[in-house]
């Protein structure tokens, strides 16, 4: 589902990153670990099409990201890549359900309300559908962002330190839900993290 080749990236004249090639199939999980400053987030942004690499190739479901124009990349990202960030951001004026539905509308032009409700139910958020995101706990917010990342059944689910701000109980819960739902929706799951707790949870690992 996702494979990379010889990705290189540099911020100005500063640090130069040469990333190892990675691959992950549909339903598979891959944990990318590494300390601070090793370019974990940079790699994730490159995989998610938020950054363009200096050289190398990112293939997602057979599409080379470098071949897409800016606008097409936006649309491709919307419908094929789900992103869960370390800190969950929302459109703060919209409620939980609307935030998730919004992601489906942006990607497909249709509002998948029923599917969003179902996803939120699977993530144990049924009671919070009509709350504002700011009224939820951090763990709950993180689960909403998982729902939002999965609403379009992406080929690739990317997670950037999804558990680092969570306590043990919530961290494992989020990790379980991520791997479980990625499998269920047939998405390749790539997590970058330095969270020790996850290293025991995901056997398939690459280190930067």
């Amino acid at each position: 589902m996702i494979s990379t080749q010889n990705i290189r990236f540099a911020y100005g004249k500063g640090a130069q990153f040469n990333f190892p090639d990675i691959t992950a199939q549909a339903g598979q999980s891959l944990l990318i670990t590494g300390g601070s400053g090793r370019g974990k987030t940079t790699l994730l942004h490159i995989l998610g099409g938020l950054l363009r690499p200096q050289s190398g190739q990112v293939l997602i479901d057979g599409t080379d990201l470098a071949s897409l124009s800016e606008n097409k990349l936006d649309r491709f990202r919307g419908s094929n890549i789900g992103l869960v960030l370390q800190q969950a951001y929302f459109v703060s004026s919209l409620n939980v359900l609307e935030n998730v539905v919004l992601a489906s509308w942006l990607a497909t032009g249709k509002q998948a309300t029923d599917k969003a409700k179902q996803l939120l139910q699977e993530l144990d958020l049924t009671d919070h559908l009509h709350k504002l995101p700011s009224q939820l706990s951090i763990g709950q917010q993180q689960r909403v962002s998982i729902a939002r990342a999965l609403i379009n059944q992406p080929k690739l689910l990317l997670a950037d330190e999804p558990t680092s701000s969570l306590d043990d109980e919530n961290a494992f819960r989020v990790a379980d839900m991520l791997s479980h739902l990625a499998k269920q929706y047939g998405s390749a799951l790539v997590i970058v993290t330095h969270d020790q707790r996850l290293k025991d949870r995901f056997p398939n690992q690459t280190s930067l």
Partner: protein
Amino acid sequence: MITKIAWKNIWFKPLNTALSIILLTASVAIITLLILLDEQFEKKFNSNIDGIDMVLGAQGSPLQLILSSVYQVDAPTGNIDYAEAKTWMHSPMVKSAIPLAFGDNYLGYRIVGTTPEYLTKYGAALNEGKVFDKNFEVVVGSAIAQKLGVKVGDKFFGSHGDAAEGELHEDHAYHVTGIAAPTGKVVDNLILCNVPSVWAMHDHGEEGHGESAEGGDYHEHEGHNHEAVANGEAHGHEGHDHDAHAESEEHHDHEEVISEEGKEITAVLIQFRGKMGFITWPRLVAQNTKMQAASPAREINRLFTLFGIGLDALQYLAYGIMLISGISIFIALYNTLKERKYEFALLRVNGASRLQLLLLVLIESLLLCITGFVFGTIVGRVALSLISGSSESEFKISFNPLEFVWEKEGYLLGLTIFVGILAAVIPAVKAYSLNISKTLANA
């Protein structure tokens, strides 16, 4: 969907939004009010001077003469001698001349002695009854009839002067013979009778006063009166027919007959045949008589020029407020941009294009502006109806708040939208050019 998000966003910060909308509402309301006032004021003023080229009256302020005799809002400048006025009324340059004699009021509504021509001039047909003919018969304007519930056949006593509290003339009651149809002009708020009624009322009421030195015992003077009319006839034929007719009828009815000699009227509304009168009359009248001839068009123009300064100032104030509201929207959008950049980055991650973010910011601003415009249009009209209420009781001028001046208000809408776009340009471009990776990495 973008519009929905924009709508939810603006209400997520209710105080910012309220401030922007209030400012916009204020400026749009003021400008709308000015547009409507300007349009209707001028229309009202000009409709009342249609067919009146010159007003002949006592010396004094020409503007006062116009206001009192055409618009019925100011006190008259004084009286003029009827005989002298007649020589001018019968000048060959004059197409029509309508005498006006003020004296009394009924509950604050002026009773004006005139000829039935006055009704014709303002295009006031009669809704009911017939035109005043004999002394003390009156036609009541439509607005008064409606407000006071006056009907044909009613009788009432007038009070002296302009004030409703004036001395009551209890000797003669006015007799309502007709109700005028509404015209939207001054006639609606007047009670009209013939000129001799006004004289008779005052001959009686003010016995011993200078004005009625002769009239005090007018019964003896009936014969004399005939002579006076005959003298008057020498001046012109139009007047002859009318006066003689009125006279004979009054004889039939054995009514009191009033001598014209030494009698005074307040003003004469003149319409010329040609253009010559416009130029020559003011000078001729001033040189040869103690009267003055004032042009309503010119005086009203002068009045508007005076008004204009105030209206212009108010208009600049309104545009100033609009500028401030534009700045307020800009600051609101710009300030929230910092906290909202993650939101924008997130929308991009979820597949929103740059253009959609640009639109989002733009639509938020436009929603504010259009809401402000709608409120402003409504508030402006409410203000106008309030003003209309007070101006109607004070100046007998009412405004229609439901009128739409499409062209000017269209421009105003355009201007409001322009302000909205201008205020949103910088924030929108910032949202458009947001670097998502950087924004999310620095989180």
